[in-house]
């Protein structure tokens, strides 16, 4: 029993962090300028991060997705990295819808390959109408199947796990940003982080994230269902988002402040890939089987 990242995995996570921390591709992506984001994705591909799900273990995939969440990297990450790695075929980005819980294919305008998974079967697809997400970095598209490709097992659960990891990373980033902010913002002559109400909010966020992380990694190891990871990480990240907004005050409510990149993404991912209710129903079905 060794429930921690290996030395190589930690090093890989550090490498990813160093690469992604420099990225400010999100704002450009939101306005349709994909080039800075694609440059990041080419770096990720060079590091082997986009094919990690086929080359490594699920834990490695989670490491990558957590980093992507932490740095609010735009693009169809869950789809490319966790769901469709075998179907990338040398391309950079792939996307898919998986109805009923993933109704839209995210970033189908920029993805090299577009699919839809219906009842466990993979189809090539073409994007249709665009739908606006709360997260301006997520361009959502309706898709229409064109040609049947073949069976694709476990696609939804792999995506759910990746989504959980991304949420976990985003939640951790929101807490880090909040901690940094409340230490330097002064009101009534003191840093707001010295007020107990603020402290207790952030402590609760920390506890939630600390206990969600082992669930996500436990799901990667297969001891818990992917649904459990989505519930735990979704709730912890959402609490981190609500609290981050509250402790930032009005500045957090603006799109000018970068916090909005994470706030909107967490809200979007909380709804995407199956809501908490969907996943709780799945867990109970498994528990009482």
């Amino acid at each position, binding site marked *: *029993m060794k429930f921690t990242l290996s030395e190589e995995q930690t090093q890989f996570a550090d490498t990813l962090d160093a690469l992604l921390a420099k990225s400010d591709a999100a704002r450009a992506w939101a306005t349709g300028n994909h080039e800075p984001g694609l440059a990041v994705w080419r770096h990720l591909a060079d590091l082997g991060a986009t094919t990690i799900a086929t080359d490594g273990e699920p834990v490695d995939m989670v490491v990558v997705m957590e980093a992507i969440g932490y740095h609010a990297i735009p693009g169809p990450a869950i789809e490319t990295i966790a769901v469709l790695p075998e179907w990338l075929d040398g391309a950079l980005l792939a996307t898919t819808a998986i109805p009923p819980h993933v109704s839209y294919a995210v970033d189908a305008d920029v993805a090299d390959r577009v699919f839809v998974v219906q009842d466990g079967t993979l189809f090539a697809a073409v994007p249709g109408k665009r739908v606006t997400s709360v997260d301006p970095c997520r361009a959502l598209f309706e898709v229409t199947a064109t040609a049947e490709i073949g069976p694709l097992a476990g696609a939804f659960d792999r995506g759910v796990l990746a989504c959980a990891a991304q949420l976990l990373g985003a939640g951790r980033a929101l807490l880090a940003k909040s901690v940094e902010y409340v230490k330097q913002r002064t009101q009534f002559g003191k840093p707001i982080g010295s007020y107990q109400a603020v402290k207790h909010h*952030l402590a609760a966020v920390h*506890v939630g994230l600390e206990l969600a992380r082992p669930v996500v990694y436990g799901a990667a190891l297969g*001891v818990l269902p992917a649904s459990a990871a989505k519930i735990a990480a979704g709730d912890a990240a959402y609490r981190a988002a609500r609290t981050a907004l509250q402790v930032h005050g009005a500045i957090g409510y603006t799109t000018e402040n970068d916090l909005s990149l994470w706030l909107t993404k967490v809200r979007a991912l909380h709804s995407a890939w199956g809501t908490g209710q969907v996943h709780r129903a799945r867990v109970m079905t498994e528990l009482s089987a």
Partner: protein
Amino acid sequence: MDLDLDAATLAFQAEVRSWLAANTPADLPSMDTADGFEAHRAWERTLFDARLSVVSWPEEFGGRNASLLQWVVFEEEYYAAGAPARVSQNGIFLLAPTLFAHGTAEQCARLLPTMANAEQVWAQAWSEPEAGSDLAAIRAAARRTDGGWLLSGQKTWSSRATFADRGFGLFRTSGERHRGLTYFMFSLRAPGVTVRPIAQLDGEPGFAEIFLDDVFVPDDDVIGDVDNGWKVAMSTASNERGLSLRSPGRFLATARRLVELWETSPDPVLRDRVVDAWLGAQAYRLYTFGTVTRLASGGSLGAESSVNKLFWSDLDIAMHETALDLLGGEGETTGDWLDGYLFSLAGPIYAGTNEIQRNVVAERILGLPR
């Protein structure tokens, strides 16, 4: 990264499981009654004879030198088997680590074996009427006398002190606040000691006030240096908040019973809360495996124990509230779930209130200013 148990741990788990299956008694009366206390003491003796009462201790004191992982596994098996609550918990989980870290060889040899077989059951006498969260406000004092000390003052909320044999706590020997406190052990039967039982929410005298009036304690019953009691106490206080007092085993067992209860009347409205309770117990289990891994490679528990305490105490209440709601109108009536609920309600208060734990997390882990 893996969660696989090694061969030695699997063998230990199998032994514990089969021993518990053969030996776990049917429900004992509450340990907060005179009969129940003695029944629990006898059960500790049975555990001790199988060398299962203190598995992580050295063999010379009745243990098996079990690793932390094996101890966690033991606890999972213990609660899964529905075995009784541990009447000696405050001795074996709170005082013993202090003795291992700060006690003399003589103290360990004299006190640990009778703690392990529950011949002596220990009560924690830390809190006072004016020193709750603010433990450094302790007023009970010790005066020098020939060959030892005379303790005087009042301790309170001391769990199981009603029927226990000995107590341990801090007394003022000089100075103010954290300075000048000394860690003493004393007999609850010594001349000058008066124990007044206090009925808890369930009506049973689960804790007590202790009045001390010039109670003689020999020098041999001081732990660590005189005036250094605060450091001695704090160095092992994380044991109480953290893993050792409430390992995942009991919550996993409660979660399993909760899922079974739900299955007998699958109320769709309560389904999500049942899943959350089950998931919370799994999360705490895996989180603990992370802690065990870290400690095994030389880390220390420290402020992280506050994260544990916040999580398990809220989880315990949520699980029992869900059970009472599943029981509908029957939730009001006495039974295991109601007992467990009343017990869980104290979780956010003892072992350092959850407000204090949130302060610790915010200041010592997140680095927020005081």
